[in-house]
């Protein structure tokens, strides 16, 4: 009896220690800090990448390949290289998004409601591309806890929109506790209706960071509607010509 009590006391001490330290370990990082870190790690000073967007719906599968250049948070250029869209370019500068269609030799500036249109029929809108990496300006973050996702420990964070000017009123993110990569995201309406789900299928390391190299975005409202985004190569901090992100370059 006494021996049993003794062994209980032995167990109680580490348990108490765990109870005392576990919450402090969890709360060591706040939801806001996690989101800030996530935003920081999502941008590079400059980058050059090649990849593809594969859209699968009930009509079939379509693949578009692209080359992309980016600079800081706001400047990016995507040039499509697949046969159907060859030469089409999307230029994003601070607050503006331009499309260039080589066949029509036409330059279109997208703004307002036009940004909500789907890009090449995928589950990604132009607006998703213009999104600034300042999540906390538009969302209130709550850390729900930690959860393993594909054997990786993740922070589970719920973002609730504080403004109506964002596409998804509620987002639930699974963020890697070590490298702050968003492994999974669920996008819902204010009423809690799940609209889209994003999942990282594979990663690559570049510039000391872990980046999603293959992502699946699934439209949960439509059966069999997926978009796969693949990065085939990523060059971090290359020296880029400043003219790349100009309208003049877009029409060449």
């Amino acid at each position, binding site marked *: 009896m006494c021996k049993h009590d003794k062994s209980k006391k032995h167990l109680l001490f580490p348990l108490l220690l765990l109870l005392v330290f576990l919450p402090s370990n969890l709360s060591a990082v706040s939801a806001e800090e996690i989101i800030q870190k996530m935003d920081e790690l999502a941008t590079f000073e400059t980058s050059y990448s090649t990849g593809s967007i594969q859209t699968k719906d009930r009509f079939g599968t379509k693949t578009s390949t692209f080359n992309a250049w980016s600079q800081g948070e706001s400047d990016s250029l995507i040039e499509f290289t697949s046969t159907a869209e060859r030469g089409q370019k999307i230029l994003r500068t601070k607050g503006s998004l331009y499309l260039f269609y080589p066949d029509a030799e036409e330059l279109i500036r997208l703004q307002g409601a036009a940004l909500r249109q789907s890009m090449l029929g995928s589950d990604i809108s132009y607006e998703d591309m213009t999104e600034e990496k300042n999540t906390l300006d538009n969302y209130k973050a709550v850390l729900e806890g930690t959860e393993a996702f594909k054997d990786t420990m993740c922070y589970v964070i719920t973002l609730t*929109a504080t403004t*109506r000017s964002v*596409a998804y*009123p509620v987002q639930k993110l699974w963020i890697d506790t070590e490298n702050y990569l968003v492994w999974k995201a669920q996008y819902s*309406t204010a009423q809690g*209706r799940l609209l889209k789900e994003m999942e990282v299928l594979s990663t690559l390391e570049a510039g000391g960071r872990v980046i999603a190299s293959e992502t699946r975005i699934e439209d949960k*409202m*439509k*059966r069999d509607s997926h978009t796969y985004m693949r990065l085939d190569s990523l060059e971090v901090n290359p020296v880029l010509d400043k003219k790349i992100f100009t309208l003049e370059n877009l029409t060449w």
Partner: protein
Amino acid sequence: MKFIITLAFKNLSRYKRRTSITAVAIAVGLMMYLLVDSILIGAENESMRNLRWYETASARIHAPSYWEDRMLFPMESSIENPDAVLALLDENGWKATARTVFTADMILYSEDFGEDGNMNVLVTAIDPETDNDVFHFSDTLIDGRFLEKGDENGILIGSWFAEDINAKVGYWITLVARGNGGFYEAMDMQIVGILNCPNPNVNRTLLMMDKDTAGYYLGMNQAVTEIDVLLPEHEDIDVEMAKIQAKIEASHLDLEVHSWKELAKDYLAIAEAKRGGTSMILFLVFIIAAVGISNTMLMAMYERTRELGMMRAMGMSDNNIRLAFLIEAGGIGFIGAVFGIVLGLLANLYMVNVGIDFGWMMRDLDMGYRIQSVFRGAWSMSSFIEAFVAGIGLSMIVAWIPISRALKMDIPSCLRHQ
């Protein structure tokens, strides 16, 4: 002169068979012309009416920033205080209703529709209590019920649209739309009624729900995207528009009024172009009628060359002969025109009141007219006058040629003419 007129009229009664055949040819030709003219005018009038009754109303009020982006249906450019505008319009005797128009992705489920699917749709959110003051949708209900104020899940669908997607009353759909500001929202709606709208463009795409329900889901906070106004048909639209705009400005409301002519600018431009084609059709109908009349008149005059030669041999002057024959031709034309007008009146009576059902053709063919099935005629006094004058004038003109030719021949040749 009296003798010439008497001679001409005696000739009319002397050759009864020829006169009747020629007059019938003229009458049928003119009737055809009047019929085609009536259908074309009727189609245009009904198209314009259906445009105003089911699409544009007489005039529409928008927030100033809405017009530029109207093809994108921006929710952000809305009328913040529609009640104030509606009250202002009501005070001044204009009937009006508030609407919110938005685009959505419509999700269909296999449980109801047999297979899953989705499509982009345009949804019109209406105030069921006032919408029928301006539009005429409640008259077109063929199945189920009309919307009620505050209908939480009810949606109406056009009958052709319902046929295309195999929708029935009671089926559920989900609308995924972007709300005021840009956020996504999903609405589960049940089809409560099917409308057979006479405007084919509307009937192919119509989805209608309650404005308050849409406002709740889309975060409109009582705002609407448009206010539609009904103006009396006989009023000058531009004058009324100026009055409405003046009242709005006097009330310090930052809004713009657009007439149905501005709203349907593309349709009207096509209609204008089509009017050229319509004139061509009428011209061709006229030519066909004219050829028929000419042929009969030519035959009638040629067979009387010997008679003409005999009159010349007896000393009647060429001018008097020409005049007598022209009056005779005019007389035939007059009889034909009178019968043509009577036949045209009878045919038009049917066309105006009953019409011809082209629904089988209009279902899959967009001819640009805002008419779904029955094409009705319209009364046009000017067309009847034109047809009457043309019937007489044309007969006299075509008679001129064989008469002149016969008068150029020598008398023996005329007498020997077979």
